[in-house]
């Protein structure tokens, strides 16, 4: 299997962390008033603007998000992971994800991991490194490392292929 296709998701990330609380809903991630457009770039402009944080203005491409439980609850809008990805978020670590968001993130090739310990052990502004393959999360500022919940093999495959559609094209089945 080739790993060099342009869609392929890279498997290691390093970046600065933005922290959010519990139950960050999809209306916060991308308010419904912008859903009359599905263009990733225009969606990214409004990403997290209901969250009242410096994130929407100051985050840099490659930064990561660490959040509490039930991240992405609410609507099924795939615009949420699309907006986060287009904004440049490289990976999201949460205590838990809401189920539709969980599917959507894999399907659109947005890397996500679940680890309560990591979320507790990371502060906003910390630099961390994440290995998707193993689920290892390393806080480079404190030297502490954490292990994320395992991801089923076939979902890792979807993510590696860059999302469900490239996955189906490459392997012929969803």
């Amino acid at each position, binding site marked *: 299997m080739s790993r060099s296709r342009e869609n392929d998701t890279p498997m290691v990330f390093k970046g600065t962390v933005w922290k959010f609380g519990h*139950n960050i*809903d999809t*209306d*916060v991630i991308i*308010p*419904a*008033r912008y*859903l*009359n*457009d*599905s263009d990733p770039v225009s969606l990214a402009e409004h990403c997290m*603007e*209901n969250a*009242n944080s410096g994130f929407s203005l100051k985050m840099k491409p490659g930064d990561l998000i660490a959040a509490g*439980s*039930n991240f992405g*609850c*609410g*609507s*099924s*809008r*795939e*615009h949420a*992971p*699309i907006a986060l990805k287009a904004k440049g978020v490289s990976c999201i670590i949460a205590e*838990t994800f*809401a*189920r*539709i968001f969980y*599917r*959507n993130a894999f*399907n*659109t090739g947005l890397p996500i991991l679940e680890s309560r310990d990591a979320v507790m052990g990371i502060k906003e502004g910390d630099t961390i490194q994440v290995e998707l393959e193993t689920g290892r999360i390393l806080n480079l500022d404190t030297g502490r490392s954490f292990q994320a919940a395992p991801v*089923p093999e*076939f979902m890792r495959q979807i993510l590696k292929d860059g*999302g*469900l*559609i490239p996955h*189906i*094209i490459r392997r012929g*089945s*969803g």
Partner: protein
Amino acid sequence: MPMTITEKLLADHAGLREVFPGQLVHATIDIALGNDITAPIAIKQFQKIGVKHVFDKDRVVLVPDHFAPNKDIQSAEQCRMLREFSREQHLTHYFEVGNAGIEHALLPEKGIVLPGDLVIGADSHTCTYGALGAFATGVGSTDLAAVMATGKLWFKVPESIKLIYTGRRRPWVGGKDLILYTIGKMGVDGARYQAMEFVGETIRRLPMDDRFTMANMAIEAGAKNGIFIPDPTTAAYVKRRATREFRFYRSDPKAIYREVMEFNLDQIEPQVALPHSPENVRGISEVGEISIDQAVIGSCTNGRISDLKQAASILKGKKAAPGVRLIIIPATPSIYREAMKKGYFDIFLNAGGVISPPTCGPCLGGYMGVLGKGERAVATTNRNFIGRMGHQESEVILSNPSVAAASAVLGRLAGPEELGIEQE
């Protein structure tokens, strides 16, 4: 192995004799749904896959309802994509403005979703159809695209939570109050990734519309699906609608549940969810003085005929308080017509209300009643997240239709009992 209704449905659709929670299965889909927000992305993804035709033109359903009738040029373009795709693919169930209504009220009404079905929709409130004894769950646009192409999708079999309701409902207490009360107890992730199975003597006496309302909000507890065991009430509802076969599943007596919760309703009053979370639930008598600027009666949660009837029985001969905008949105054209025939429109208009065509409209802050800065609405919708109905600094309180109507009259959050009106 004894199984729950949810497990049986998934097993049958995956061609397996039995399944267990946590198992990943590849299942055949009976109905796949998209709307004007989610289908455009699904259509683009479908085209990337490169298959020519959808897996079954009778089983892919597209409904422009969120920002339709088109609210602006961008919405018009999204709706145009649905229209053109439906024409190209000869979809049986595409609903043009005039025939369209809010998807989760429309599909059961038309007999498109039936008991025993496995339904996915690129809309989180697809779980509404669990009221019929179907397994129905929301997915994203890319999942919808995969189903349009292949007719199948992977699922993780959820654990089930059994929710038992007993006792007599007090006046003005309906499905909305039961589900708000439940979410208030469980929290917005209390059923995350799980099936909520609604049972008990109160449920057996619960009308179909109220069941839809309850299943609709299962997602607000984080559930994958909400489900009712089909019974004579279900049978009476589907009998005159179904044009294909359907099947009643039920849970085995020894099926295994992750949790069993019991609610006695004898003392439960109408419930409301205060900003900004559906779990922020109080009884109506505990809310104190909260003024409102707008009351919205509609949505896939409470835009059905019995909801409008409730609102009409409160508003009859009354007026919305000065400064309160009263917006009524029948969920489908046939509900609209029935409400008109029954004389509810006169009541609403005399009360100073405005009657919107069927649409999601303000429920998701689209149009037909978006809130400005600092404004507060009581709404029969299902979500009161920050900015859900408009400005980031506006607020939404969730309630049943009788509370929304009574609040409109009094200009503050209030229950129908304050107006001294008895439920018929």
